[in-house]
């Protein structure tokens, strides 16, 4: 049996912009590739499962962040180790910020992150909100929607997920970067949800998880004709949805 263990990180308190759509996308695609996805919802106070192949984290409100923060720091060493070992992770918005070094709020208070990503975030009063397209070398155009007030700055040498064309959007509205990539961890402000309309990123997470666990990603060995057909239909619809989304006003 070719099981893949996916962890949904703090879905109770960090899941505000349809982030569960990312979990659904990964599980459905894994199933259509002929693997057996097994999802664990990890909330504060839960036992950490024996095995994790992929971790997905979402955005949250200030109150959500406060609720998870103690537990999150208890798990910080574990998360840093898993990231360094190459476990694929997707961290959206609030969890992206918490995976960075720190967040400094508008009034100057500094909240620590766990430092997996060499980035820091500074609060500002203006929110960056709207449809966004970014260009990524590995994934082509990444299409989504951003909604954040923190400005995130990457340390020298940290690779962004992609580049944006205009000022006033992306990580900080200034340097035209968006998101970050460290090991196999992707941090980003993009939701919409991200993965349904960006199957290239979903498949990167899936391939990495499968290769780490089973040595090779071989959908052709597991996939039925019906599953292949369903996947082609999904990808065709995603392509249409991407084209429309990319054409919409900010």
């Amino acid at each position, binding site marked *: 049996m070719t099981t893949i263990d996916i962890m*949904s990180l703090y*879905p*109770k*308190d960090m*899941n*505000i*912009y*349809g*982030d*569960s*759509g990312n*979990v*659904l*996308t990964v*599980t*459905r695609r*894994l*199933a259509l590739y002929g693997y*057996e*996805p*097994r*999802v*664990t*919802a990890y*909330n504060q106070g*839960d036992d950490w*499962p024996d095995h994790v192949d992929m971790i997905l984290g979402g955005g949250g*409100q*200030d*109150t959500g962040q406060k609720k998870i923060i103690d537990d999150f720091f208890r798990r910080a060493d574990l998360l840093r180790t898993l990231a360094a070992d190459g476990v694929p992770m997707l961290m959206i918005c609030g969890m992206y910020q918490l995976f960075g070094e720190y967040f400094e709020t508008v009034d100057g208070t500094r909240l620590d992150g766990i430092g997996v990503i060499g980035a820091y975030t500074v609060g500002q009063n203006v*929110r960056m*909100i*709207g*449809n966004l397209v970014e260009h990524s070398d590995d994934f082509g155009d990444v299409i989504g*929607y951003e*909604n954040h*007030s923190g400005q995130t700055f990457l340390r020298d040498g940290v690779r962004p997920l992609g580049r944006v064309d205009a000022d006033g959007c992306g990580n900080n509205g200034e340097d035209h970067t968006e998101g970050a990539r460290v090991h196999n961890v992707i941090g980003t402000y993009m*939701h*919409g*949800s991200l993965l*349904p*309309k960006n199957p290239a990123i979903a498949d990167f997470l899936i391939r990495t998880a499968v290769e780490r666990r089973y040595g090779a990603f071989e959908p052709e060995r597991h996939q039925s004709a019906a599953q292949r057909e369903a996947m082609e*239909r*999904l990808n065709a*619809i*995603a392509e*249409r*949805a991407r*084209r*429309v*989304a990319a054409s*919409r*006003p*900010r």
Partner: protein
Amino acid sequence: MTDDVRNIRHAAWNAFATPAIGKLVRVAARATRHGGSAFPGKVVERIDPGFLARTLAQLPLGVVLVSGTNGKTTTTRMVASMLSDLGLRVFTNPTGSNFTRGVVSALLERVTLAGRLDADIAVLELDEAYAVHFVRQVRPRYALLLNVMRDQLDRFGEIDNTARLLGHVAEATTGTVVLNREDPRIATLADLVCEPGAGVRYFGLSDDLRSFFPSDDDMATTVAVEGDGSADDSAGTAANGTADDAESAGARDARDTSAGRNALPADVTLTRVGDHEADFLFAGETQPRSTTVRLEGVYNLYNAAAALAVVRAVVADAGRIVRPSGKPADGFADRVHTFAQSGTDVSALLAAVAHVTPAFGRGEVIDVNGSPTELLLVKNPMGFRLSLASFPPTADTDTMIVINDEYADGRDMSWLWDVDFTSLRETGVKQVSGVRAWDMALRLEYDQVPVGAVDTDLDAALAAFVRPDPAHPHAPKHIYCTYTAMLAVRAALARIADVPDAGVGK
């Protein structure tokens, strides 16, 4: 800011002319089809910023402000209809035009040229952000705060922030604040009620009904633990107990807070829901009372509890008004007296509930080519979920979904991923349309809901959808629409069927 100062100075000399100017703009706007129903309000807000407060201050029974994420329009309609049935003259903004300028526009329609408003009380629906803007100008005597759900987060930021906005309304209310006991973010606003003499009433649910009406916090755990997507397998693929864990965590939370909630006495409790009927338990009585309702959807039965609670608050106050001698002979004193008497009769209250008809786009059934066609407005994940749960498709129901992403709909499509569409797997969705038809189709495909056709061209999609099927000539139809999609669907249907005038800026 300098604009405001100048405007206020102007108001001193030009205020007398505001009703006339406003009415003129209204007529001109209608004639030229320019700017929609709120346009005259926009003009008057600029030339006479004091118009709103000055006009509403004439109301002897004050203002009832209704706000919250879901159910504002229908609940406002219920409250206004009930107060009117019980004998009051009611001013309301009935078109779902829930910004302050919409209220101003509606007022312009009602005031005399001398600026007189012939009404005893106003019932106003206001969007959460505009409610704050409104209470800075006019202190409501009553506030009915329904719920806070994830809705248009791109406009308000966060739901806790939305709750804070409603907190300002609670603070500004001078009489009774009516709160949803079952929504923790709303119930806690009782702490903010601070005006001297102001009080709080709750409406609530009996224990066994809470599962019908999940609060926002109950949503996070639902989609995240979908196994491989197939309904039968989902429990199996979450074999390590994930689904159970998530469920029990949610249930644990609900129990923790429900103990606290039950400690709060509700003035009106919804104790049973049926097909177009419900039971309500009133404070001070031991047995629930039954009534029929003409509104669609189980959530409107809970909105009826909310409406009943606020009407009872108005009745209680009216009962304390001493009948003055020598008051102007406009009949106000008589009306209030009658109102206070009939309002204390529970069967009269329930008759008023039974009499309320659906508001525009809130569960209306219209006849299209011989098929009963239900128009369902969906604005946010919880509303969409409640709508799907309230109107389950029968085997022969045709379903269409129309999703737009204009400002009034919300530009962010993330919300579609917070709705569980698996209940549509059996019947499928015949047509998907709207600007974001392909986003919707993608969402349905991931939930393995069969989709007949996808077409971003609404007219073409709608024509195909309502074309009579010889095999099922009278098959019922459901059309789920976002706000601007609803307007477009009505306009399109009006060309092919008999559709009542929506009264919304055409």
